[in-house]
């Protein structure tokens, strides 16, 4: 019996063990269930959603960029785009090689070019390569003919993973022969990184998106892009549609109306190009060779608002080269060593010493420092400080003149003297609380910082003040001192001098600075802002290109009001004095020969010429001009003198704006824009924006020549002269 009870107890104990085991198993299940559903539930919810939701993306139509009269500078056209799905190709045994080779045959392309287009970009891969998402179909060409597209579609078994679809692609129509390349910018496919970055913003990116990379396309990307339509289908495990989930309709991008006038833009581009060509025919007496005139820019700005009417940069390119993915050859032509870097917008990214157009700043600085505008200062043919001799331009002397006359004749020695005296007052080589009037004034004129134009990547230029000198010396002293020790050449001597005294503001620095030479750097847009400021009474406007953002239905119009970023540091009297002096430049001073016959009584012209010396290069031509309506600033690097190289071009731009002929007669019918365009183009009820007719491009020799010179790399590579291409575009428009 005892044994029996013991056996019974053993069974009971074992039953308890079983029970404990059983319930620990159940607890394990409950714990795991909690972990999956409560703790990680969100993650699985997302996974489930991505599981059964298929997205069909309908890209939004990108908004147009229009000129002030509604003429499209950038719009869209429908083209047959042949794309390859990388995901499909990579699944094939030969990684899609045979398909791509076959495709190249149909498209009349080289197989290696096609292969290069579908490879992914990484640090080692040279362009062309695909920088977008690997899951997005990669466009091979957007110029497929209907026949090619049909071949691909009808023989799908030969072209797995290849599609040929009509797609809206960006087009830069170049109205009236204008190009506007650097201002418009270009698009390229979105990268994975950008998608991640934009995920939580108000305008998230889709894999199929193209984003603006520079210019207005980038600046107004969020407005232009719109929102792609996404239809989400609930699908089952076999991809069969079992329902429709939340869908977002495509919202087309807004249109951006700019203050650019395509007609003026075309003329500005043409004249800039012509001026550079003409400069290349001129002999540079200093170097004994012709001027290189390798880069130039011109800005036409509304004086009273800072709005940009035209902005040209040369060398230039055809923005259409970027459409549908850029070819390797084209990319090289745009970015290679010998390209001249046409992607740079030299109006905002090119910087150079300003030369004499800087003297308005020196003049203002001098008056503010206590020197009278009307006192007479000796304009000698040269000016000596110690054993250094600073010559007047072309060693001319004018005797005692006031500051206005000094501006008119651009007398350097007057400003040398002012600068030297001021330098001495500030303590010379042992500065004691220097007031640095001239440097302070440059900052007050907005130099050394961005003007705030609505374009990306504006450069700041430089005011070589004491602070900068110190920083610059600290950064370079080691290499200067090293070079100064070993090198006996001129450059070596400069290096040695810089090594020893580069941290100080030397007399020579200040003297050079006073006439806009030396280390000062300015951009054309900065100088345009300043001269417009002188014209309008002292307001420094942020230059603006965007005038209004118009919603695709035309119902919402958000006007972009120009903003000011400062006032010029002068009173009305000084402004009038400078204004008068600059009018004198145009009528009897350094620019007078370029404005012969100008109807000064009807349209008061003001100008200042500048010729900046650049170490080791030919002089930079500067020409800053304004009327009460417009400010035009032009510069040509290695182009010669201010009025010499840039004068005729600027005059022709004014001629076109006001309808003035070479004799000075005003024909209002020929005037393109006698007054700045204040109104927006007419917006129709359906949201379309009415485009004013463009004058047919003038058949003059200069226009066709210029078009050929600014020819795109693609046009050049296909051996096709640009005027023909422009003509065909016109045909397409009709």
């Amino acid at each position, binding site marked *: 019996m005892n*044994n*029996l009870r*013991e*056996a019974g107890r*053993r*069974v*009971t104990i*074992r*039953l308890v*063990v*079983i*029970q404990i*085991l*059983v*319930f620990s*198993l*159940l607890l*394990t*299940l*409950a714990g*795991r*269930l*909690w972990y*999956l*559903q*409560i703790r*990680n*539930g*969100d*993650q*699985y*919810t997302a*996974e*489930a*959603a991505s*599981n*059964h939701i298929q997205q069909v993306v309908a890209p939004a139509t990108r908004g147009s960029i229009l000129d002030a009269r509604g003429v499209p500078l950038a719009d869209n056209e429908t083209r047959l785009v042949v794309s390859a799905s990388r995901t499909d190709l990579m699944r094939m045994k030969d990684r899609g090689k045979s398909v791509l080779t076959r495709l190249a045959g149909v498209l009349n392309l080289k197989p290696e070019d096609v292969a290069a287009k579908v490879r992914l970009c990484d640090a080692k891969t040279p362009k062309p390569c695909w920088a977008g998402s690997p899951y997005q179909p990669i466009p091979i060409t957007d110029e497929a003919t209907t026949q090619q597209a049909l071949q691909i579609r009808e023989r799908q078994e030969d072209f797995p993973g290849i599609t040929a679809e009509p797609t809206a692609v960006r087009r830069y129509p170049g109205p009236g022969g204008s190009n506007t390349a650097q201002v418009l910018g270009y698009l390229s496919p979105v990268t994975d990184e950008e998608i991640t970055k934009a995920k939580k913003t108000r305008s998230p990116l889709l894999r199929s998106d193209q984003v603006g990379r520079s210019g207005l396309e980038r600046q107004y990307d969020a407005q232009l892009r719109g929102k792609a339509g996404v239809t989400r289908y*609930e*699908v*089952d*495990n*076999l991809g069969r549609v*079992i329902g429709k989930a939340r869908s977002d309709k495509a919202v087309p991008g807004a249109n951006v109306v700019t203050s650019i006038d395509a007609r003026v833009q075309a003329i500005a581009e043409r004249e800039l190009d012509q001026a550079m060509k003409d400069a290349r025919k001129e002999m540079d007496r200093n170097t004994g060779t012709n001027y290189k005139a390798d880069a130039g820019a011109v800005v036409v700005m509304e004086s009273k608002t800072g709005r940009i009417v035209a902005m040209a940069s040369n060398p230039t390119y055809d923005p259409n080269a970027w459409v549908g993915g850029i070819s390797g050859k084209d990319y090289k032509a745009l970015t290679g060593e010998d390209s001249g870097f046409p992607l740079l917008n030299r109006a905002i990214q090119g910087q150079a010493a300003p030369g004499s157009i800087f003297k308005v700043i020196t003049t203002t600085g001098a008056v503010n420092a206590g020197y009278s505008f009307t006192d007479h200062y000796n304009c000698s043919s040269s000016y000596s400080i110690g054993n250094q001799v600073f010559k007047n331009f072309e060693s001319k002397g004018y005797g005692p003149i006031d500051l206005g006359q000094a501006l008119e004749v651009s007398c350097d020695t007057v400003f040398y003297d002012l600068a030297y005296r001021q330098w001495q007052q500030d303590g010379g080589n042992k500065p004691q609380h220097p007031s640095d009037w001239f440097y302070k004034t440059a900052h007050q004129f907005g130099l050394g910082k961005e003007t705030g134009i609505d374009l990306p990547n504006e450069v700041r230029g430089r005011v070589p003040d004491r602070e900068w000198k110190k920083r610059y010396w600290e950064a370079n002293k080691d290499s200067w001192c090293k070079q100064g020790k070993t090198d006996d050449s001129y450059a070596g001597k400069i290096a040695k001098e810089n090594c020893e005294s580069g941290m100080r503001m030397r007399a020579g620095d200040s003297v050079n600075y006073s006439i806009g030479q030396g280390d000062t750097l300015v951009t054309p847009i900065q100088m345009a802002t300043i001269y417009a400021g002188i014209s309008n009474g002292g307001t420094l406007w942020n230059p603006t290109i965007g005038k209004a953002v118009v919603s695709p239905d035309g119902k919402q119009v958000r006007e972009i009001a120009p903003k000011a970023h400062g006032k010029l540091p002068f009173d009305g009297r000084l402004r009038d004095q400078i204004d008068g002096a600059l009018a004198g430049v145009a009528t009897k001073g350094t620019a007078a020969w370029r404005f012969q016959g100008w109807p000064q009584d009807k349209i008061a012209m003001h100008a200042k010429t500048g010729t900046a010396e650049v170490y080791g290069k030919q002089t930079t031509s500067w020409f800053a001009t304004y009327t009460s309506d417009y400010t035009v600033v032009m510069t040509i690097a290695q182009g010669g003198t201010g009025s010499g190289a840039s004068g005729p071009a600027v005059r022709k731009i004014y001629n076109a704006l006001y309808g003035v002929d070479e004799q000075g007669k005003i024909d209002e019918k020929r005037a393109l824009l006698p007054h700045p365009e204040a109104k927006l183009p007419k917006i129709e009820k359906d949201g379309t924006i009415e485009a004013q007719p463009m004058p047919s491009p003038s058949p003059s020799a200069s226009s066709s020549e210029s078009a050929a010179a600014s020819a795109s790399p693609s046009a050049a590579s296909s051996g096709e002269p640009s005027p023909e291409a422009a003509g065909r575009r016109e045909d397409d428009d009709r």
Partner: protein
Amino acid sequence: MTSPVPYRARRFSPERGTWSRLTARDSVLRRLDWVMLLAALALSAIGTLLVYSATRNRTELNQGDPYYFLLRNLLNTGIGLALAIGAVWLGHRALRGAVPILYGISVLFTLAVLTPLGATINGARSWIQLGGGFSIQPSEFTKITITLGMAMLLAGKVDAGDRHQPDHRTVVQALGLAALPIAVILLMPDLGSVMVLVVIVLAVLLASGASNRWIAGLLGTGVMGCVLVWQLGVLDEYQINRFAAFANPALDPAGVGYNTNQARIAIGSGGLSGSGLFHGSQTTGQFVPEQQTDFIFTVAGEELGFVGAGAIIFLLGVVLWRACRIARETTELYGTIVAAGIIAWFAFQSFENIGMTLGIMPVTGLPLPFVSYGGSSMFAAWIAVGLLQSIKAQRPVSA
């Protein structure tokens, strides 16, 4: 009618009507474990809804009739209930006499699966097609017959009072009795059922009071067996893949890991309260294969959430808790052993089934008792409930 007749006389009195027998204070109905019964019924009811949810859209399975599986599941549950009532009616003691016959039949059926009569589903030849869309899975019934057979052998001498513990010879006989069908099922190969059967054998031995050496020996043999099975390459590729997918959940989510991955997404996306019955995207979209049978728990996880899926685990816990009580309270070793076998079976099979959907056990083809669609497993589970009820309801012989 309620005259104070002596207990035994009243119990076996032939003149009493059925109704009075059922309503009497000490009637069978009153002695049943209603808590367990209701829990099991609730599980079957939930199961029916889940089966319907999982199959109403599977046109390739339900022959265009969304209620096809619902009706069949109801029918199966009905038959299962009838079988349970039959088991109670007959009483486990009466069945005890029939155990050798039942065992023999079940072994024969199991063997028949290996003949051309058998049908292969999902890599295992475990079914006998009966025509008309009906088929049976003999291994389900083997779980009962092995339990009953081993209990009969092991408890025989103890219940008779000859011994206080099964002797070695009896244990060897009992193991031999279990080994035959297990070997046949291993050949199918139906690894899941083999695992359940081995666990049942272990629990039966434990509950029988067999010496610790047997338990240890059996555990050792089990481990050795696993190693042997792995080493000898008896496993089919699909079985190895299942283990690989279990060991590495991120493995090939479109291939071998698809099932577990989709199951986990379904359950995980349910959250606290689920997407609502019939509203699960994973279920509606048929992303989880075998969802009405082996992966039924994923429907609960997705559509009923933690609340509903937790309720299923809770109800299973109730059934097992009551079964444990029955195992402890019955005075006959036979009843204890049978109850222990059933507990091990339900507990392990539930753990394996739910565990594989949660990714903590490798995938095997085992249904969730009461909940999964499937006639054989439904019948077997309800017969087991009937046996437990009968153990509870029947008074000791020598009271």
